[in-house]
């Protein structure tokens, strides 16, 4: 009798167990094991060793450089994301589809290629190379190059969250505000921003995580000068290549904690503001 009332869309138990075991096993081996190893290696000799490794002057300067690069790149990409989403969502114009595709382009470009293009523009053999040398301006192997590479790899993050969100929200509210005499800035701050603030936070969060963690693109343009142009991820490589595993895993653990914090905040935003973020997930 019970068979008659079985939910027809429910998988049989054996299938549930099989798929569950495969999914769980794959995630555990592929994702959780490396994460566990980072923390195990970092704290193998106790918390004091970990803290001492972080307190190395070169490590601290790498942390500082990463924070500075992100502090420049993330706000710039945020302003760009808002401007791009505003013009794409609020107006009709020709070539919009191409514009959206071009904004997404940096996502599909290899990070190393992202670094390479700036070498071709600003490097000694590049377009502006001789001019820059003449005027003693340093872009490559210095902070500007690192910031440029970081901007490129994190370029679409904020725009990509905001565009679908603002397209979904439509223009009615803003147009009503404008008709009632609000200025553009007033309309944005009082009407648009409250509607998109959590989406904006979400985009900034992802942008920031990538900016702090970028390796390939920054590796090409940084020059790897220890204590000067080494960001946190580059410092991990330097320490690892010099067989300073304790140091490498200490910095790696710091970055992993940052990644876990990002994931926690991301999940919180997704859970708390699911409706608002839904638009960005459908695309």
């Amino acid at each position, binding site marked *: 009798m019970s068979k008659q009332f079985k939910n*027809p869309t429910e*998988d049989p138990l054996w299938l549930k167990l099989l*798929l569950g075991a*495969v*999914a*769980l096993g*794959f*995630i555990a081996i*592929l*994702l959780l094991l*490396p994460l566990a*190893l*980072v923390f195990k*290696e970092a704290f193998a000799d106790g918390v004091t060793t970990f803290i001492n490794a972080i307190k190395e002057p070169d490590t601290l300067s790498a942390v500082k450089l990463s924070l500075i690069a992100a502090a420049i790149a993330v706000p710039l990409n945020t302003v*760009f994301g808002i*401007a791009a989403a*505003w013009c794409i969502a*609020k*107006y009709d114009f020709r070539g919009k589809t191409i*514009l959206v*595709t071009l904004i*997404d*382009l940096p996502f*599909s*470009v*290899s990070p190393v*290629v992202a670094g*390479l*293009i700036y070498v*071709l*523009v600003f490097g000694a053999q*590049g377009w502006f190379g001789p001019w820059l040398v003449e005027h003693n301006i340093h872009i490559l192997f210095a902070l500007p190059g690192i910031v*440029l590479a970081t*901007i*490129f790899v994190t*370029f679409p993050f904020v725009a990509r969250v905001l565009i679908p969100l603002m397209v979904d929200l439509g*223009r009615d509210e803003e*147009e009503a505000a404008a008709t009632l005499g609000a200025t*553009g800035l007033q*309309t*944005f701050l009082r009407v648009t921003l409250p509607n998109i603030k959590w989406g904006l936070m979400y985009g900034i969060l*992802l942008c920031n995580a*990538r900016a*702090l*963690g*970028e*390796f*390939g693109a920054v590796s090409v343009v940084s020059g790897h000068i220890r204590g000067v142009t080494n960001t946190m*991820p*580059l410092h*991990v*490589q330097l320490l*690892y290549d010099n067989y300073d595993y304790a140091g490498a895993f200490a910095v*790696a653990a710091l*970055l992993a904690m940052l*990644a876990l914090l990002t*994931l926690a905040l*991301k999940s919180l935003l997704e*859970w708390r503001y699911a409706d608002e973020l839904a638009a960005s*997930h459908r695309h």
Partner: protein
Amino acid sequence: MSAIGLKFAAPLLKRRHVLPGFRLSLGFTLFYLTSLVLIPLLALLLRPVSLGFDGFWHAIATPRVLASLRLSFGMAAAAAVIDSVFGLVIAWVLVRYRFPGKGLLDAVIDLPFALPTAVAGIALSSLYAPNGWVGKILIEYGIRIAYTPWGVLVAMIFISLPFTVRTVQPVLGELGQDVEEAAATLGATRLQTIAKVVLPMLVPAILTGAAMALARAAGEYGSIIFLAGNIPAVSEIAPLLIITKLEQYDYAGASAIGVVMLAASFVMLLALNGLQAWAAKRR
């Protein structure tokens, strides 16, 4: 509508945009996009022109370069297929089954997005080295992952997994179960329903996820170089060869590989747009 209403509405309708800021937002978007992304990319695309076709071909058609391109794209394709299968299983388990700790498992999927690639690289390298937690077990069966081409594959599977899960998951979630109920009432077994009713509806999402995974894996650098051993023509990926050539001031050689990789990115971006248009039409 009354005559007065029309009289007031007319100026609004005539103006192309009700909201202010069109020129400002589009102008800034285009300026930012052009100066930071398009012009630098152009610098790369124009390099082969200065090389001449023969020079370009000469730079590409060396055994070492061809082997690196084959390795990057071949392994990326393999990783995309493997991730598509496991990504589908994971998405299925996350959407259809209820179990404790599901939220946590869901959040962990994005770890490869959030974890800096250098951290993933040293963790995977230590894990799969012959004396590592996993490498130790595999070596007993004669399987070597670290410092072989298989290391490239493992790192690619790691970094590309979120793409395949995250594209299938929302589509599966929005899929109505009525068709499955219909199939069940018509006498299909559960497995028949999954294979012949549910999976065909997921094909566009699976293909989109696979294409994104392929694009990401082919361009990946950070997580691979620690694990692969980087033996020329054996386990040396194309992005690494770009960096090697740059370090030898071989700009022409580096740009030639860069152009090939960029062309591949364009093709994959077009394929993705095509896929999305196809999926939208099917819906």
